[in-house]
Protein backbone atom coordinates (compact mmCIF):
# COMPACT_ATOMS: atom_id res chain seq x y z
CA UNK A 1 0.00 0.00 0.00
CA UNK A 2 1.50 3.30 -1.08
CA UNK A 3 1.72 6.36 1.06
CA UNK A 4 -1.09 8.12 -0.82
CA UNK A 5 -3.48 5.19 -0.38
CA UNK A 6 -2.49 5.05 3.27
CA UNK A 7 -3.46 8.67 3.67
CA UNK A 8 -6.75 8.39 1.79
CA UNK A 9 -7.65 5.31 3.81
CA UNK A 10 -7.51 7.50 6.90
CA UNK A 11 -9.71 10.20 5.38
CA UNK A 12 -12.96 8.83 6.86
CA UNK A 13 -11.29 8.83 10.29
CA UNK A 14 -10.20 12.40 9.69
CA UNK A 15 -13.75 13.36 8.75
CA UNK A 16 -15.20 11.72 11.84
CA UNK A 17 -12.56 13.56 13.87
CA UNK A 18 -13.67 16.86 12.36
CA UNK A 19 -17.31 15.97 13.13
CA UNK A 20 -16.34 15.24 16.72
CA UNK A 21 -14.48 18.54 16.70
CA UNK A 22 -17.62 20.42 15.66
CA UNK A 23 -19.52 18.81 18.52
CA UNK A 24 -16.72 19.73 20.92
CA UNK A 25 -16.77 23.29 19.64
CA UNK A 26 -20.36 23.83 20.81
CA UNK A 27 -19.39 22.54 24.27
CA UNK A 28 -16.06 24.29 24.61
CA UNK A 29 -17.46 27.63 23.44
CA UNK A 30 -19.86 27.81 26.39
CA UNK A 31 -17.25 26.56 28.83
CA UNK A 32 -14.71 29.07 27.59
CA UNK A 33 -17.09 32.06 27.60
CA UNK A 34 -18.44 31.24 31.05
CA UNK A 35 -14.89 31.04 32.34
CA UNK A 36 -13.88 34.23 30.62
CA UNK A 37 -16.89 36.08 32.07
CA UNK A 38 -16.35 35.46 35.74
CA UNK A 39 -13.63 32.89 36.27
CA UNK A 40 -16.19 30.14 36.81
CA UNK A 41 -14.89 26.75 35.81
CA UNK A 42 -18.21 25.03 35.08
CA UNK A 43 -17.61 21.39 35.98
CA UNK A 44 -21.31 20.70 35.35
CA UNK A 45 -20.90 21.31 31.63
CA UNK A 46 -20.66 17.61 30.83
CA UNK A 47 -23.80 17.04 32.89
CA UNK A 48 -25.67 19.53 30.70
CA UNK A 49 -24.51 17.59 27.64
CA UNK A 50 -25.69 14.29 29.10
CA UNK A 51 -29.06 15.83 29.99
CA UNK A 52 -29.40 16.76 26.31
CA UNK A 53 -28.43 13.24 25.24
CA UNK A 54 -31.19 11.81 27.48
CA UNK A 55 -33.71 14.30 26.08
CA UNK A 56 -32.76 12.83 22.71
CA UNK A 57 -33.33 9.29 24.02
CA UNK A 58 -36.76 10.23 25.40
CA UNK A 59 -38.06 12.25 22.46
CA UNK A 60 -36.35 10.68 19.45
CA UNK A 61 -35.83 7.17 20.76
CA UNK A 62 -36.48 4.56 18.08
CA UNK A 63 -38.57 6.76 15.83
CA UNK A 64 -36.12 9.19 14.27
CA UNK A 65 -37.80 11.71 11.99
CA UNK A 66 -37.35 15.38 11.27
CA UNK A 67 -40.28 16.32 13.50
CA UNK A 68 -39.01 14.40 16.55
CA UNK A 69 -35.56 15.90 15.98
CA UNK A 70 -36.95 19.43 15.87
CA UNK A 71 -39.06 18.85 18.98
CA UNK A 72 -36.04 17.42 20.78
CA UNK A 73 -33.84 20.36 19.79
CA UNK A 74 -36.50 22.85 20.89
CA UNK A 75 -36.94 21.12 24.25
CA UNK A 76 -33.16 20.94 24.63
CA UNK A 77 -32.81 24.65 23.95
CA UNK A 78 -35.41 25.52 26.59
CA UNK A 79 -33.91 23.09 29.09
CA UNK A 80 -30.43 24.44 28.38
CA UNK A 81 -31.47 28.05 28.98
CA UNK A 82 -33.28 27.06 32.18
CA UNK A 83 -30.38 24.99 33.54
CA UNK A 84 -27.83 27.63 32.52
CA UNK A 85 -29.89 30.29 34.27
CA UNK A 86 -30.17 28.12 37.36
CA UNK A 87 -26.39 27.64 37.40
CA UNK A 88 -25.83 31.37 37.02
CA UNK A 89 -28.26 32.06 39.86
CA UNK A 90 -26.49 29.58 42.13
CA UNK A 91 -22.99 30.79 41.27
CA UNK A 92 -23.85 34.50 41.62
CA UNK A 93 -23.82 34.65 45.46
CA UNK A 94 -20.27 33.27 45.40
CA UNK A 95 -18.99 35.99 43.09
CA UNK A 96 -16.45 37.47 45.50
CA UNK A 97 -15.11 34.14 46.72
CA UNK A 98 -12.61 33.07 44.11
CA UNK A 99 -12.53 30.29 41.61
CA UNK A 100 -12.29 27.31 43.98
CA UNK A 101 -15.66 27.64 45.69
CA UNK A 102 -17.41 28.13 42.38
CA UNK A 103 -15.71 25.10 40.87
CA UNK A 104 -16.68 23.07 43.96
CA UNK A 105 -20.31 24.18 43.66
CA UNK A 106 -20.52 23.15 40.01
CA UNK A 107 -18.77 19.88 40.91
CA UNK A 108 -21.42 19.21 43.55
CA UNK A 109 -24.20 20.02 41.09
CA UNK A 110 -22.57 17.75 38.50
CA UNK A 111 -22.56 14.85 40.98
CA UNK A 112 -26.20 15.47 41.91
CA UNK A 113 -27.24 15.72 38.26
CA UNK A 114 -25.38 12.53 37.31
CA UNK A 115 -26.99 10.60 40.20
CA UNK A 116 -30.48 11.79 39.33
CA UNK A 117 -30.06 10.87 35.68
CA UNK A 118 -28.66 7.45 36.55
CA UNK A 119 -31.60 6.85 38.90
CA UNK A 120 -34.02 7.79 36.13
CA UNK A 121 -32.46 6.16 33.08
CA UNK A 122 -30.47 3.34 34.66
CA UNK A 123 -26.95 2.26 33.87
CA UNK A 124 -27.60 1.02 30.32
CA UNK A 125 -26.14 2.53 27.18
CA UNK A 126 -28.91 4.10 25.12
CA UNK A 127 -28.44 4.62 21.41
CA UNK A 128 -30.03 7.36 19.33
CA UNK A 129 -30.49 7.03 15.58
CA UNK A 130 -29.63 9.77 13.11
CA UNK A 131 -32.50 11.41 11.20
CA UNK A 132 -33.54 9.02 8.39
CA UNK A 133 -32.35 11.29 5.58
CA UNK A 134 -28.89 11.48 7.13
CA UNK A 135 -28.46 7.92 8.34
CA UNK A 136 -26.67 6.26 5.41
CA UNK A 137 -23.17 6.41 4.01
CA UNK A 138 -22.06 8.29 0.94
CA UNK A 139 -19.21 7.28 -1.40
CA UNK A 140 -16.69 9.97 -2.30
CA UNK A 141 -13.58 9.00 -4.29
CA UNK A 142 -13.79 5.36 -3.30
CA UNK A 143 -14.20 6.00 0.45
CA UNK A 144 -17.42 5.73 2.41
CA UNK A 145 -18.42 8.54 4.74
CA UNK A 146 -21.37 8.58 7.18
CA UNK A 147 -23.72 11.33 6.01
CA UNK A 148 -24.55 12.35 9.55
CA UNK A 149 -20.95 13.24 10.32
CA UNK A 150 -20.67 15.32 7.16
CA UNK A 151 -23.88 17.09 8.18
CA UNK A 152 -22.41 17.76 11.64
CA UNK A 153 -19.36 19.38 10.04
CA UNK A 154 -21.60 21.60 7.91
CA UNK A 155 -23.65 22.50 10.98
CA UNK A 156 -20.48 23.24 12.95
CA UNK A 157 -19.24 25.55 10.19
CA UNK A 158 -22.56 27.42 10.16
CA UNK A 159 -22.54 27.68 13.96
CA UNK A 160 -18.98 29.01 13.95
CA UNK A 161 -19.84 31.69 11.41
CA UNK A 162 -23.01 32.69 13.28
CA UNK A 163 -21.25 32.90 16.64
CA UNK A 164 -18.40 34.92 15.17
CA UNK A 165 -20.88 37.34 13.60
CA UNK A 166 -22.81 37.55 16.85
CA UNK A 167 -19.70 38.32 18.88
CA UNK A 168 -17.95 40.58 16.38
CA UNK A 169 -20.76 42.47 14.67
CA UNK A 170 -23.50 43.04 17.25
CA UNK A 171 -23.79 45.32 20.26
CA UNK A 172 -24.51 42.34 22.54
CA UNK A 173 -21.41 40.60 21.23
CA UNK A 174 -19.32 43.68 21.94
CA UNK A 175 -20.68 43.75 25.50
CA UNK A 176 -19.83 40.09 26.02
CA UNK A 177 -16.30 40.57 24.70
CA UNK A 178 -15.85 43.63 26.86
CA UNK A 179 -17.04 41.76 29.95
CA UNK A 180 -14.62 38.93 29.23
CA UNK A 181 -11.68 41.29 28.98
CA UNK A 182 -12.52 43.68 31.86
CA UNK A 183 -15.64 43.06 33.89
CA UNK A 184 -15.13 45.87 36.38
CA UNK A 185 -14.72 48.49 33.67
CA UNK A 186 -17.97 47.38 32.00
CA UNK A 187 -19.72 47.68 35.35
CA UNK A 188 -18.14 51.07 35.95
CA UNK A 189 -19.70 52.52 32.81
CA UNK A 190 -23.14 51.62 34.13
CA UNK A 191 -23.95 48.24 32.62
CA UNK A 192 -25.50 45.48 34.72
CA UNK A 193 -23.00 42.67 34.17
CA UNK A 194 -25.28 40.23 35.99
CA UNK A 195 -27.65 40.29 33.00
CA UNK A 196 -24.77 39.48 30.67
CA UNK A 197 -23.72 36.72 33.01
CA UNK A 198 -27.20 35.17 32.97
CA UNK A 199 -27.24 35.53 29.20
CA UNK A 200 -23.89 33.81 28.71
CA UNK A 201 -24.73 31.00 31.14
CA UNK A 202 -28.06 30.51 29.36
CA UNK A 203 -26.37 30.55 25.96
CA UNK A 204 -23.68 28.12 27.13
CA UNK A 205 -26.34 25.84 28.61
CA UNK A 206 -28.33 25.96 25.39
CA UNK A 207 -25.28 25.00 23.33
CA UNK A 208 -24.29 22.19 25.70
CA UNK A 209 -27.75 20.60 25.93
CA UNK A 210 -28.31 20.90 22.16
CA UNK A 211 -24.88 19.32 21.63
CA UNK A 212 -26.26 16.37 23.60
CA UNK A 213 -29.01 15.93 20.99
CA UNK A 214 -26.63 16.34 18.05
CA UNK A 215 -24.06 14.01 19.57
CA UNK A 216 -26.61 11.28 20.31
CA UNK A 217 -26.01 9.32 17.08
CA UNK A 218 -22.23 9.46 17.72
CA UNK A 219 -21.84 8.82 21.43
CA UNK A 220 -25.27 7.61 22.64
CA UNK A 221 -26.20 8.28 26.25
CA UNK A 222 -24.84 6.47 29.30
CA UNK A 223 -23.62 7.22 32.82
CA UNK A 224 -20.00 8.38 32.73
CA UNK A 225 -20.40 10.07 29.36
CA UNK A 226 -20.69 13.38 31.23
CA UNK A 227 -17.15 12.99 32.63
CA UNK A 228 -15.75 11.95 29.29
CA UNK A 229 -17.29 14.90 27.47
CA UNK A 230 -16.24 17.34 30.20
CA UNK A 231 -12.67 16.03 30.04
CA UNK A 232 -12.36 16.45 26.28
CA UNK A 233 -14.00 19.89 26.42
CA UNK A 234 -11.56 20.97 29.16
CA UNK A 235 -8.62 19.85 27.04
CA UNK A 236 -10.06 21.78 24.10
CA UNK A 237 -10.37 24.92 26.19
CA UNK A 238 -6.86 24.55 27.62
CA UNK A 239 -5.43 24.03 24.14
CA UNK A 240 -7.47 26.78 22.50
CA UNK A 241 -7.08 29.40 25.21
CA UNK A 242 -9.60 30.36 27.89
CA UNK A 243 -12.12 33.01 26.95
CA UNK A 244 -11.31 32.88 23.25
CA UNK A 245 -14.17 31.74 20.94
CA UNK A 246 -11.84 31.33 17.96
CA UNK A 247 -9.48 29.34 20.17
CA UNK A 248 -12.34 27.05 21.12
CA UNK A 249 -12.96 26.31 17.44
CA UNK A 250 -9.30 25.71 16.65
CA UNK A 251 -8.76 23.58 19.76
CA UNK A 252 -11.93 21.55 19.13
CA UNK A 253 -10.96 20.66 15.56
CA UNK A 254 -7.39 19.83 16.61
CA UNK A 255 -8.40 17.65 19.56
CA UNK A 256 -11.22 15.98 17.60
CA UNK A 257 -8.79 14.94 14.88
CA UNK A 258 -6.00 13.88 17.29
CA UNK A 259 -8.52 11.85 19.28
CA UNK A 260 -10.05 9.96 16.38
CA UNK A 261 -6.81 9.41 14.44
CA UNK A 262 -5.15 8.27 17.66
CA UNK A 263 -7.98 5.87 18.53
CA UNK A 264 -7.91 4.44 14.99
CA UNK A 265 -4.14 4.07 14.57
CA UNK A 266 -2.70 3.50 18.07
CA UNK A 267 -5.69 2.73 20.34
CA UNK A 268 -3.68 1.78 23.44
CA UNK A 269 -1.80 5.06 23.70
CA UNK A 270 -4.59 7.40 22.52
CA UNK A 271 -5.03 9.03 25.97
CA UNK A 272 -1.31 9.78 26.13
CA UNK A 273 -1.47 11.24 22.63
CA UNK A 274 -4.08 13.72 23.89
CA UNK A 275 -1.83 14.57 26.83
CA UNK A 276 1.08 14.98 24.42
CA UNK A 277 -0.86 17.38 22.21
CA UNK A 278 -1.93 19.39 25.25
CA UNK A 279 1.61 19.45 26.67
CA UNK A 280 3.09 20.54 23.37
CA UNK A 281 0.66 23.43 23.03
CA UNK A 282 1.23 24.53 26.63
CA UNK A 283 5.02 24.46 26.28
CA UNK A 284 4.93 26.60 23.16
CA UNK A 285 2.05 28.84 24.21
CA UNK A 286 1.27 28.67 27.96
CA UNK A 287 -2.04 30.51 27.57
CA UNK A 288 -3.33 28.23 24.81
CA UNK A 289 -3.20 28.70 21.06
CA UNK A 290 -5.25 31.90 20.97
CA UNK A 291 -5.40 32.78 24.65
CA UNK A 292 -3.81 35.69 26.43
CA UNK A 293 -0.38 34.49 27.49
CA UNK A 294 -0.82 35.86 31.00
CA UNK A 295 -3.61 33.35 31.71
CA UNK A 296 -1.30 30.41 31.79
CA UNK A 297 1.85 31.84 33.31
CA UNK A 298 2.47 32.01 37.02
CA UNK A 299 1.73 35.40 38.49
Amino acid at each position, binding site marked *: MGFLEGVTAQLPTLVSGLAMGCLLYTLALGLSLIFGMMDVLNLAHGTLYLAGAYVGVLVIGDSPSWSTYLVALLLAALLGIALGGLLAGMVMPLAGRGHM*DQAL*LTLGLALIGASLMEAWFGGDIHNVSAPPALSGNVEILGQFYPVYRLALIALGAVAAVLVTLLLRRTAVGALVRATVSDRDMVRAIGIDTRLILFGVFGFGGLLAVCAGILGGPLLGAAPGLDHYVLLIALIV*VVVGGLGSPAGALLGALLIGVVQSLGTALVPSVAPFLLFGAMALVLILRPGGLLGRVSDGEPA
Partner: protein
Amino acid sequence: MSTESATAELAEVPAETPAEPRSPSWRRTGPRILLATASVGLLFGAPWYLDVFAVSVATQLLSFSLLAASLVLVMGTAGMPSLAQSAYFGVGGYAAGLLAIHVTQSAVAMLVCAALAGLVFAAATGWLLIRTRASYFLMLSLAIGELLAAGANGWMDVTGGSDGLFGIPSPTLGGLDLAVEGYLYLYTLVMALGTFVVVALIRASPFGLALRGIRDSESRMRALGYRTGWYKFAVFCIGGAVAGVSGALWVTQIRFVSPHDLGFMASAFVLVAVIIGGADSLLGALVGAATIIAIRNFLPTEWEGQGPLVLGVLLVVIVYTFRGGVAALPARLAALRK
Protein backbone atom coordinates in the same frame (compact mmCIF):
# COMPACT_ATOMS: atom_id res chain seq x y z
CA MET B 1 -16.41 4.43 65.55
CA SER B 2 -14.64 5.12 68.80
CA THR B 3 -15.97 8.56 69.65
CA GLU B 4 -17.52 7.58 72.97
CA SER B 5 -14.36 5.98 74.27
CA ALA B 6 -12.30 8.87 72.91
CA THR B 7 -14.41 11.45 74.75
CA ALA B 8 -14.32 9.36 77.92
CA GLU B 9 -10.56 9.29 77.67
CA LEU B 10 -10.55 13.03 77.06
CA ALA B 11 -12.64 13.68 80.15
CA GLU B 12 -10.23 11.72 82.30
CA VAL B 13 -7.07 13.32 81.04
CA PRO B 14 -7.27 16.69 82.86
CA ALA B 15 -8.05 14.99 86.18
CA GLU B 16 -4.82 13.03 85.95
CA THR B 17 -2.64 16.04 85.21
CA PRO B 18 -0.53 16.97 88.25
CA ALA B 19 -1.86 19.84 90.38
CA GLU B 20 1.56 21.25 91.29
CA PRO B 21 2.50 24.39 89.33
CA ARG B 22 4.58 23.88 86.23
CA SER B 23 6.02 26.30 83.73
CA PRO B 24 3.37 27.98 81.56
CA SER B 25 4.61 26.22 78.45
CA TRP B 26 3.99 22.84 80.12
CA ARG B 27 0.48 23.97 81.00
CA ARG B 28 -0.18 24.60 77.36
CA THR B 29 1.62 21.66 75.80
CA GLY B 30 1.00 19.12 78.57
CA PRO B 31 -2.62 18.32 77.78
CA ARG B 32 -1.74 18.17 74.11
CA ILE B 33 1.01 15.62 74.70
CA LEU B 34 -1.31 13.56 76.92
CA LEU B 35 -4.06 13.81 74.33
CA ALA B 36 -1.70 12.71 71.57
CA THR B 37 -0.42 9.78 73.66
CA ALA B 38 -3.96 8.76 74.51
CA SER B 39 -5.13 8.87 70.89
CA VAL B 40 -2.09 6.93 69.67
CA GLY B 41 -2.82 4.36 72.39
CA LEU B 42 -6.44 4.20 71.30
CA LEU B 43 -5.39 3.79 67.67
CA PHE B 44 -2.97 0.94 68.42
CA GLY B 45 -5.46 -0.77 70.70
CA ALA B 46 -8.27 -0.74 68.13
CA PRO B 47 -8.01 -4.42 67.08
CA TRP B 48 -8.60 -5.42 70.72
CA TYR B 49 -11.78 -3.44 71.34
CA LEU B 50 -13.37 -3.15 67.86
CA ASP B 51 -15.09 -5.87 65.84
CA VAL B 52 -13.62 -7.12 62.56
CA PHE B 53 -15.81 -4.93 60.33
CA ALA B 54 -14.97 -1.78 62.27
CA VAL B 55 -11.26 -2.61 62.11
CA SER B 56 -11.48 -3.07 58.36
CA VAL B 57 -13.26 0.29 58.00
CA ALA B 58 -10.59 1.88 60.20
CA THR B 59 -7.91 0.43 57.91
CA GLN B 60 -9.65 1.96 54.91
CA LEU B 61 -9.84 5.25 56.75
CA LEU B 62 -6.10 5.23 57.43
CA SER B 63 -5.06 4.74 53.81
CA PHE B 64 -7.72 7.15 52.52
CA SER B 65 -6.76 9.87 54.98
CA LEU B 66 -3.19 9.59 53.72
CA LEU B 67 -4.49 10.45 50.26
CA ALA B 68 -6.26 13.43 51.83
CA ALA B 69 -2.97 14.37 53.50
CA SER B 70 -1.25 14.43 50.12
CA LEU B 71 -3.89 16.86 48.87
CA VAL B 72 -3.51 18.99 52.02
CA LEU B 73 0.19 19.23 51.23
CA VAL B 74 -0.31 20.13 47.58
CA MET B 75 -3.45 22.25 47.84
CA GLY B 76 -3.55 23.55 51.39
CA THR B 77 0.14 24.23 51.87
CA ALA B 78 1.25 25.04 48.34
CA GLY B 79 -1.99 26.38 46.88
CA MET B 80 -2.23 23.98 43.94
CA PRO B 81 -5.81 22.65 43.71
CA SER B 82 -4.96 19.25 42.27
CA LEU B 83 -7.63 16.95 40.92
CA ALA B 84 -4.93 14.51 39.82
CA GLN B 85 -4.11 13.24 43.31
CA SER B 86 -6.33 10.18 43.01
CA ALA B 87 -4.55 9.34 39.76
CA TYR B 88 -1.22 9.04 41.58
CA PHE B 89 -3.05 7.03 44.25
CA GLY B 90 -4.26 4.70 41.51
CA VAL B 91 -0.84 4.52 39.87
CA GLY B 92 0.61 3.53 43.24
CA GLY B 93 -2.14 0.94 43.62
CA TYR B 94 -1.41 -0.57 40.21
CA ALA B 95 2.34 -0.58 40.88
CA ALA B 96 1.87 -2.34 44.23
CA GLY B 97 -0.62 -4.81 42.77
CA LEU B 98 1.54 -5.67 39.75
CA LEU B 99 4.57 -6.13 41.98
CA ALA B 100 2.63 -8.48 44.25
CA ILE B 101 1.33 -10.51 41.31
CA HIS B 102 4.55 -10.79 39.33
CA VAL B 103 7.51 -10.33 41.69
CA THR B 104 7.14 -10.31 45.44
CA GLN B 105 4.39 -10.20 48.05
CA SER B 106 6.48 -8.22 50.50
CA ALA B 107 4.25 -5.42 51.77
CA VAL B 108 7.16 -3.07 52.29
CA ALA B 109 8.46 -3.63 48.75
CA MET B 110 4.96 -2.89 47.47
CA LEU B 111 4.88 0.31 49.47
CA VAL B 112 8.27 1.54 48.24
CA CYS B 113 7.46 0.61 44.65
CA ALA B 114 4.13 2.49 44.86
CA ALA B 115 5.77 5.56 46.37
CA LEU B 116 8.30 5.60 43.53
CA ALA B 117 5.58 5.12 40.93
CA GLY B 118 3.54 7.98 42.40
CA LEU B 119 6.66 10.15 42.47
CA VAL B 120 7.62 9.35 38.87
CA PHE B 121 4.14 9.96 37.49
CA ALA B 122 3.77 13.17 39.49
CA ALA B 123 7.13 14.34 38.14
CA ALA B 124 6.23 13.34 34.58
CA THR B 125 3.02 15.38 34.67
CA GLY B 126 3.87 17.97 37.32
CA TRP B 127 6.43 19.90 35.28
CA LEU B 128 3.56 20.90 33.03
CA LEU B 129 1.07 21.54 35.82
CA ILE B 130 3.28 23.88 37.84
CA ARG B 131 3.48 26.25 34.90
CA THR B 132 -0.21 27.03 35.38
CA ARG B 133 -2.24 28.39 38.27
CA ALA B 134 -5.74 28.65 39.77
CA SER B 135 -8.50 27.44 37.46
CA TYR B 136 -6.04 26.49 34.75
CA PHE B 137 -4.32 24.20 37.25
CA LEU B 138 -7.63 22.70 38.33
CA MET B 139 -8.61 22.05 34.76
CA LEU B 140 -5.29 20.64 33.65
CA SER B 141 -4.95 18.39 36.69
CA LEU B 142 -8.45 17.02 36.10
CA ALA B 143 -7.52 16.34 32.49
CA ILE B 144 -4.29 14.60 33.52
CA GLY B 145 -6.08 12.46 36.10
CA GLU B 146 -8.74 11.42 33.61
CA LEU B 147 -6.12 10.68 30.96
CA LEU B 148 -4.21 8.43 33.36
CA ALA B 149 -7.51 6.70 34.17
CA ALA B 150 -8.16 6.29 30.45
CA GLY B 151 -4.64 4.92 30.08
CA ALA B 152 -5.26 2.35 32.83
CA ASN B 153 -8.49 1.49 31.04
CA GLY B 154 -6.85 1.07 27.64
CA TRP B 155 -3.66 -0.80 28.57
CA MET B 156 -5.48 -4.14 28.78
CA ASP B 157 -2.45 -6.47 28.82
CA VAL B 158 -0.93 -4.98 31.93
CA THR B 159 -3.77 -3.39 33.88
CA GLY B 160 -6.66 -5.67 32.98
CA GLY B 161 -8.56 -2.78 31.41
CA SER B 162 -11.94 -1.72 32.73
CA ASP B 163 -12.32 -4.94 34.77
CA GLY B 164 -9.50 -3.73 36.97
CA LEU B 165 -6.53 -5.61 38.37
CA PHE B 166 -7.71 -8.53 40.48
CA GLY B 167 -6.13 -11.65 41.89
CA ILE B 168 -3.59 -9.65 43.90
CA PRO B 169 -2.16 -12.12 46.44
CA SER B 170 -2.27 -11.26 50.13
CA PRO B 171 0.87 -9.31 51.07
CA THR B 172 3.26 -10.52 53.74
CA LEU B 173 5.44 -8.75 56.27
CA GLY B 174 8.38 -10.80 57.45
CA GLY B 175 6.59 -14.07 58.14
CA LEU B 176 3.21 -12.47 58.89
CA ASP B 177 0.31 -12.93 56.49
CA LEU B 178 -1.40 -9.54 56.23
CA ALA B 179 -4.69 -11.16 55.25
CA VAL B 180 -5.35 -11.27 59.02
CA GLU B 181 -7.42 -8.16 59.76
CA GLY B 182 -5.60 -7.17 62.96
CA TYR B 183 -2.07 -7.47 61.53
CA LEU B 184 -3.17 -5.59 58.43
CA TYR B 185 -4.60 -2.78 60.56
CA LEU B 186 -1.46 -2.44 62.65
CA TYR B 187 0.81 -2.49 59.59
CA THR B 188 -1.36 0.17 57.88
CA LEU B 189 -1.43 2.22 61.08
CA VAL B 190 2.36 2.25 61.43
CA MET B 191 2.95 3.14 57.79
CA ALA B 192 0.19 5.77 57.70
CA LEU B 193 1.27 7.38 60.98
CA GLY B 194 4.88 7.48 59.77
CA THR B 195 3.88 9.15 56.50
CA PHE B 196 1.57 11.52 58.37
CA VAL B 197 4.47 12.61 60.57
CA VAL B 198 6.65 13.16 57.50
CA VAL B 199 3.93 15.32 55.90
CA ALA B 200 3.47 17.28 59.13
CA LEU B 201 7.24 17.86 59.41
CA ILE B 202 7.41 19.04 55.80
CA ARG B 203 4.55 21.46 56.46
CA ALA B 204 6.29 22.85 59.55
CA SER B 205 9.75 23.08 57.95
CA PRO B 206 11.24 26.20 56.30
CA PHE B 207 10.42 24.49 53.00
CA GLY B 208 6.76 24.32 54.06
CA LEU B 209 6.81 27.97 55.10
CA ALA B 210 8.23 28.95 51.74
CA LEU B 211 5.41 26.97 50.10
CA ARG B 212 2.82 28.93 52.10
CA GLY B 213 4.51 32.10 50.95
CA ILE B 214 4.28 30.96 47.34
CA ARG B 215 0.62 30.07 47.87
CA ASP B 216 -0.14 33.55 49.16
CA SER B 217 1.97 35.56 46.75
CA GLU B 218 4.17 33.82 44.25
CA SER B 219 5.49 37.02 42.70
CA ARG B 220 6.63 38.31 46.10
CA MET B 221 8.45 35.07 46.87
CA ARG B 222 10.15 35.21 43.50
CA ALA B 223 11.17 38.80 44.17
CA LEU B 224 12.70 37.57 47.46
CA GLY B 225 14.90 35.23 45.46
CA TYR B 226 13.05 31.93 45.84
CA ARG B 227 13.00 29.71 42.78
CA THR B 228 9.28 29.15 43.15
CA GLY B 229 8.99 26.70 40.25
CA TRP B 230 11.35 24.23 41.92
CA TYR B 231 9.51 24.50 45.24
CA LYS B 232 6.18 23.77 43.58
CA PHE B 233 7.62 20.94 41.53
CA ALA B 234 9.29 19.38 44.59
CA VAL B 235 6.15 19.48 46.72
CA PHE B 236 4.05 18.16 43.87
CA CYS B 237 6.38 15.17 43.51
CA ILE B 238 6.30 14.55 47.27
CA GLY B 239 2.51 14.77 47.14
CA GLY B 240 2.54 12.19 44.34
CA ALA B 241 4.71 9.86 46.42
CA VAL B 242 2.42 10.20 49.46
CA ALA B 243 -0.59 9.48 47.25
CA GLY B 244 1.30 6.45 45.92
CA VAL B 245 1.92 5.16 49.46
CA SER B 246 -1.76 5.64 50.15
CA GLY B 247 -2.60 3.62 47.03
CA ALA B 248 -0.26 0.81 48.13
CA LEU B 249 -1.90 0.62 51.57
CA TRP B 250 -5.34 0.64 49.97
CA VAL B 251 -4.40 -2.23 47.63
CA THR B 252 -2.73 -4.13 50.46
CA GLN B 253 -6.17 -4.21 52.09
CA ILE B 254 -8.68 -4.27 49.21
CA ARG B 255 -6.43 -6.30 46.84
CA PHE B 256 -8.11 -4.79 43.82
CA VAL B 257 -7.58 -1.64 41.79
CA SER B 258 -9.49 -0.40 38.75
CA PRO B 259 -9.52 2.69 36.50
CA HIS B 260 -12.38 3.99 38.67
CA ASP B 261 -9.89 4.56 41.49
CA LEU B 262 -8.01 7.08 39.33
CA GLY B 263 -10.83 9.09 37.84
CA PHE B 264 -13.10 12.03 38.36
CA MET B 265 -15.25 10.54 41.11
CA ALA B 266 -12.29 9.43 43.20
CA SER B 267 -10.76 12.91 42.90
CA ALA B 268 -14.06 14.44 43.95
CA PHE B 269 -14.17 12.23 47.06
CA VAL B 270 -10.70 13.31 48.22
CA LEU B 271 -11.32 16.93 47.39
CA VAL B 272 -14.50 16.94 49.48
CA ALA B 273 -12.68 15.29 52.37
CA VAL B 274 -10.04 18.00 52.36
CA ILE B 275 -12.57 20.81 51.89
CA ILE B 276 -14.63 19.52 54.84
CA GLY B 277 -11.45 19.66 56.87
CA GLY B 278 -10.61 23.21 55.83
CA ALA B 279 -7.93 22.67 53.13
CA ASP B 280 -4.89 23.65 55.22
CA SER B 281 -5.32 21.31 58.19
CA LEU B 282 -4.13 17.72 58.54
CA LEU B 283 -6.45 16.99 61.46
CA GLY B 284 -9.32 18.56 59.55
CA ALA B 285 -8.53 16.32 56.59
CA LEU B 286 -8.71 13.34 58.95
CA VAL B 287 -12.22 14.37 59.99
CA GLY B 288 -13.14 14.91 56.34
CA ALA B 289 -11.75 11.53 55.35
CA ALA B 290 -13.70 9.89 58.18
CA THR B 291 -16.88 11.54 56.90
CA ILE B 292 -16.30 10.25 53.38
CA ILE B 293 -15.45 6.72 54.54
CA ALA B 294 -18.58 6.77 56.73
CA ILE B 295 -20.70 7.81 53.73
CA ARG B 296 -19.19 4.99 51.71
CA ASN B 297 -19.63 2.29 54.34
CA PHE B 298 -22.53 3.21 56.56
CA LEU B 299 -25.20 4.49 54.15
CA PRO B 300 -28.56 2.84 54.91
CA THR B 301 -29.20 -0.03 52.52
CA GLU B 302 -32.04 1.73 50.70
CA TRP B 303 -29.48 4.41 49.83
CA GLU B 304 -27.09 1.85 48.36
CA GLY B 305 -25.15 3.34 45.44
CA GLN B 306 -26.25 6.89 46.21
CA GLY B 307 -22.80 7.94 47.47
CA PRO B 308 -22.25 10.46 44.66
CA LEU B 309 -25.64 12.08 45.34
CA VAL B 310 -24.87 12.48 49.05
CA LEU B 311 -21.43 13.78 48.14
CA GLY B 312 -22.87 16.33 45.72
CA VAL B 313 -25.41 17.62 48.24
CA LEU B 314 -22.66 17.79 50.85
CA LEU B 315 -20.48 19.84 48.51
CA VAL B 316 -23.24 22.33 47.75
CA VAL B 317 -24.04 22.70 51.45
CA ILE B 318 -20.37 23.16 52.38
CA VAL B 319 -19.81 25.81 49.73
CA TYR B 320 -22.78 27.86 50.92
CA THR B 321 -22.66 27.42 54.67
CA PHE B 322 -19.46 25.84 55.93
CA ARG B 323 -16.59 28.03 54.74
CA GLY B 324 -13.23 27.14 56.18
CA GLY B 325 -14.38 23.64 57.11
CA VAL B 326 -13.69 21.89 60.40
CA ALA B 327 -10.47 23.87 60.91
CA ALA B 328 -12.45 27.12 61.09
CA LEU B 329 -14.97 25.74 63.62
CA PRO B 330 -13.21 26.91 66.82
CA ALA B 331 -13.01 30.49 65.49
CA ARG B 332 -16.66 30.34 64.43
CA LEU B 333 -17.79 29.06 67.81
CA ALA B 334 -15.77 31.78 69.52
CA ALA B 335 -17.40 34.39 67.28
CA LEU B 336 -20.83 32.99 68.17
CA ARG B 337 -20.13 33.19 71.91
CA LYS B 338 -19.25 36.88 71.71
